[in-house]
């Protein structure tokens, strides 16, 4: 007697396995969705925070920086920069760009208004309080 191995069964396993694990993923995602607002303090997302987030996105900050480790590895982590540098330094730094130091990596000047800088800082402050399972390992990000 020979071993049976049919294509139809292999196909059924593929389809069944896909649906099965998708269902489990969706169930887990539902639970995650309920948990996220408490982990990132969604109640503290003020309109300033949202405006700051829009500035960060529409200027493609993650094209050089990372936020919670996601983005590009050309420039420092932003999720904890509020704790690392503080609001005064952050605003002064953004305004002082580009440094123009020969050979050093350059950040453009985005010509933000004072209000926009405040919004950005509000967003960076909100980011710094997300429960990320103690990541990054230290303040340097």
């Amino acid at each position, binding site marked *: 007697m020979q071993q049976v*191995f*049919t*294509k139809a069964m*292999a196909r059924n*396993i*593929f389809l069944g*396995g*896909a649906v099965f*694990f*998708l269902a*489990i*993923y969706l169930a*887990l*995602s539902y*639970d*995650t969705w309920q*948990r*996220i607002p408490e*982990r*990132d303090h969604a109640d503290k*997302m003020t309109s300033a925070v949202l405006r700051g*987030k*829009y500035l960060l*996105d*529409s*200027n*493609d*900050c*993650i*094209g*050089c920086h990372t*936020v*919670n*480790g*996601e983005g*590009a*590895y*050309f*420039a*420092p*982590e932003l999720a904890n920069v509020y704790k690392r540098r503080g609001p005064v330094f952050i605003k002064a730094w953004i305004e002082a760009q*580009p440094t*123009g130091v020969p*050979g*050093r*990596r*350059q950040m*453009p000047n985005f010509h933000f208004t004072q209000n926009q800088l405040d919004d950005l800082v509000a967003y960076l402050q909100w*980011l710094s309080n*997300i*429960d*990320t*399972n103690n*990541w*990054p*390992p*230290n*303040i*340097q*990000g």
Partner: protein
Amino acid sequence: MKYQSQKVAKPYFIAALALFVGQIVFGLIAGLQYLHGTFLFPELPFDVTRMSHTNLLIVWLLMTFMGAAYFIVPEEAQTELYSPRLALVTFWVFLIAAALTIVAYLFVDYAHLAAITGNAILPTMGRGYLEQPLPTKIGIVLVALSLLFNVTMTLIKGRKTSINLILVGSLWGLALLFLPAFYFPHDTVKASYAWWWVVHGWVEGDWELILGALLGFILIKMTGVDREIVEKWLYIIVAMTLISGLIGIGHHYYYTGAPSYWIWLGSIFSALEPIPFILLIAFSFKMLLQRRREHPNKAAMLWALGTPIMAFLGAGLWGFMITLAPAQYYMHGTNFTAAHGHLAFFGAYAMISLAIISYAMPLLRGRTANSAAAQRWEIAGFWIMVLSMLGIALALTGAGIVTVILQRAADDPMPFMQVQDKARVFFWVREFAGVGFFIGLLVYLRSFFIAGEYEYASEMKQALAA
């Protein structure tokens, strides 16, 4: 080539290779900006270089997948393409939209581009790989719909092989998984969670199905092995991809604000993600050993066999290195990820693209295989590109190690920019390896300009003389 309408694949493949050259040029510029930060600044800030580099990659891979679909679906369905004209119109729309987008990146300030393309109404911009302005994103959906309509109608009227079902099914998946690109919640943690639906869904899920279908097609054609055997193994392999990969998405959720249980679930399932790649290697070489014919296109066979090996190294091995939560705690957001990304994208998706181009282009140009001289150039290009990419991955791994030691795991951690200075030597190695890759690409492209087809008689004579 059995059906006239398969010819429509040709412009897709040619454009893909042209965009590939563009991608590498931007990669070289980006690598240089790592070393000399004022290079081309302020005309070309690093983020613009990077988005051009990554978006060109995606566009040329999509171009090849579409070309491959237009080439494979009619042949497998044993019927002409539903509408070759639509496929050709779609090609030009896609190419022009892609070119305009890159031009806009280069010459329009990103925030200004966002303002003039309605990003304030429906924000989608400013996420990795999904930097495109809203009109481009809508264009991508329309192009995808046109492709899906065309290949699905072809499939309906023709033979329904498993290769075709997997290919067309995964193209539907590709289009569906792009839709979360339009969903950008205010909550950054949710936004990141949903962003992975597109990125992980593509490269660690759906695209692996496309890879499997293309590889299965090439192996059936080149080895002459029974279709039944190829197809049932293909189902098993893609089943393993989804079993491990669906929950394996959890390895992106450890440190981005999602609940802690993802640390366990993501580690457990993503630890299994190398399995489909190991199966893919076993499958490819088993088919090679069971081959019933010697196909004259040695170069295409080399690409087809190189793909699973390099995909295993990049996605399997380098991916595994950073996938377990305790390791990722230190490696997350470092050049370890860049090393993995480069080797996996090249090993899996660039190489399968070059494999199908290598198999199909001679047929589209009216010959079974290119001349032995052309194939020698192509094979030389293969080795130079593969070895250079390994060099890039090793250099980036070195840079990642420097970050982990000096910044992440140090008692007295150094600031980011100081650490980057310490890693300079690795960035130099990466840049040299990148130049090597570019040379390999030129050598590869040279093979297209050597005329003539494979001559059985003269090759046989040479073989006998030797």
